[in-house]
């Protein structure tokens, strides 16, 4: 089954204008708040009307504005998991799940509900009301309800955002299990980079209503096509840049020349490196045959349980006259590694490995 989408919808701030095709693998839709992610799902589900475009599930056309086809939400057979579950509060879990099965005989309904409860690991809770369930259980019940109609596509709107960390990883496992068995187009909207990476096979980055990147997730993270996508996929360090030779560029904001492996495809506008790719080497540069090692001074640091984030000033101690204001990097290292060099005197030596640098065209 393939879900083909090509829609335009005018929104107050911008126009949602996307086209892509989702196959039988889960697709993560990543984007900042207000990028139009939820609106996109609502258009596919038929809860919002796109001004122009076409949506089709294989040969089944759900929307075609040229041919004046607009299938009602109730006839689309597109399952939707809402951000805050939207379980009917006046119905038990079993009644919620059976809501979409009204046309089946009673025994068949009961059989399916039991099977779905099992699939979502909430057997025994069928007689509870939603408000008697934990967040995770509610989410599972909502998932079971959406799957009950055997939808041709599944849309999940921020499915994990309302859960705490512990439940989140459990629910993530549930979703992975569900996707593995479902094998039909599944679109998952999130603003959490790690969630998007873990749950999707394909990825679509949405920014102000437009597709900023679409493709295999590994590729998008390894080589973000634009500055915007690099930022949205969590990259912290950028500098304006210009090419000097085939494998040398000048990073204007960082005030240095860098060797790169990747030959610039077109005119280079920016260079970037992810915080955890910045390496620290001994002075003298024994482990850095290709250069790209620069002296740096610590500006501030902040700790998480296992990692430390270091804000570094390149070339000279912070606060000295003549410094380049933008020549600052954010590095992230495991604490074990940090223990090895934290006592060293400044300057430390940061290495920006050529294979970790990515060049961005404008």
């Amino acid at each position, binding site marked *: 089954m393939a879900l083909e989408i090509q829609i335009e919808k005018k929104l107050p701030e911008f126009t949602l204008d996307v086209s892509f095709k989702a196959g039988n693998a889960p697709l993560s839709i990543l984007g900042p708040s207000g990028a139009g992610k939820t609106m996109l799902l609502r258009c596919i589900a038929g809860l919002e009307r796109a001004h122009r475009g076409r949506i089709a599930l294989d040969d089944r056309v759900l929307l075609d504005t040229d041919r004046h086809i607009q299938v009602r939400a109730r006839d689309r057979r597109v399952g*939707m998991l809402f951000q805050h579950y939207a379980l*009917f509060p006046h119905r038990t879990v079993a009644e919620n799940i059976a809501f979409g099965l009204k046309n089946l005989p009673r025994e068949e309904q009961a059989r399916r509900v039991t099977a779905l409860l099992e699939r979502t690991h909430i057997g025994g809770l069928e007689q509870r009301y939603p408000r008697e369930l934990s967040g995770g259980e509610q989410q599972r019940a909502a998932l079971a309800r959406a799957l009950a109609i055997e939808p041709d596509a599944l849309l999940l709107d921020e499915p994990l955002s309302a859960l705490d960390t512990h439940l989140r990883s459990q629910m993530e496992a549930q979703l992975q299990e569900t996707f593995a068995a479902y094998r039909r187009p599944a679109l998952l909207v999130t603003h959490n980079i790690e969630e998007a990476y873990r749950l999707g096979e394909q990825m679509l980055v949405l920014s102000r209503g437009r597709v900023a990147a679409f493709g295999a997730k590994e590729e998008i993270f390894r080589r973000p096509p634009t500055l915007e996508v690099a930022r949205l996929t969590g990259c912290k360090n950028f500098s304006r840049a210009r090419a000097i030779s085939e494998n040398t560029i000048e990073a204007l904001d960082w005030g240095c020349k860098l060797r790169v492996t990747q030959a610039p495809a077109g005119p280079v506008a920016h260079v970037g490196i992810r915080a955890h790719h910045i390496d620290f080497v001994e002075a003298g540069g024994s482990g850095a045959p290709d250069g790209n090692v620069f002296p740096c001074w610590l500006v501030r640091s902040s700790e998480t349980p296992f990692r430390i984030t270091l804000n570094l000033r390149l070339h000279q101690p912070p606060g000295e006259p003549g410094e380049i204001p933008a020549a600052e990097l954010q590095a992230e290292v495991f604490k074990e590694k940090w223990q090895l060099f934290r006592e060293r005197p400044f300057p430390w030596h940061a290495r920006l490995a050529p294979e970790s640098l990515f060049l961005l065209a404008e």
Partner: protein
Amino acid sequence: MVPVTLFAQITASLPMDWSPLWISLETSVVATLVTLVAGLAAAAWRQRRTGPAMALVDGVCLLPLVLPPTVVGFFLLLLFGRNGPLGKLLLKLGATVVFSWPATVIAASVVAFPLMYLTARAALEQVDSRFLEAARTLGASEWRVFRSVALPLAWPGVLAGTILSFARALGEFGATLMLAGNIPGKTATIPIAIYFAVEADDVQRAVGWCLADVAISLALLGGLYYWTHAQGRARWVRR
């Protein structure tokens, strides 16, 4: 129904015309049912529409609340009278509404309608639209969305509207007098009986009916409060 029949037997044995009590109750119950259906339908219809024309719809729906009941009664008289558009139509079918028992129901329904309409609309608007959308993605028709999701969730508000409508219907006087008149045993409700008792200087009778009215209202409101309160605690929690 046992207490009611028992009560009817007792009242029948007392040397007094109890018909206003029964007329009032029957009228109010029927009018409340009419209002409930009409008010809900109008509120549900109106809820999904916007535009300048809707301001006019709202205005017309709320008019009976704003106008003095005598004015409402007079309009109804024009509408249902021998020369009125509806009156003529009904006359052709061999029915006269004016000064008949149905006239008391019509008057009470029209006057109570705005209260039902307003509360039902507010209650339906309170329902989180995500529940309705979820129902739609699960294949429910609009009627099923309304009956199985919107209405149960709006029920406390709708119930409040029903109580208000019943209270308003029970107390209806002006429009009823205009359209249904004062025909003892047929259209004379308690408020009308009180008015004419006072007119006839029958203070004792007037006080009797006033006390009866107070008793009915208290019993009704108390009963409803108890019922909704008991229900409210049990709502949507496993039995």
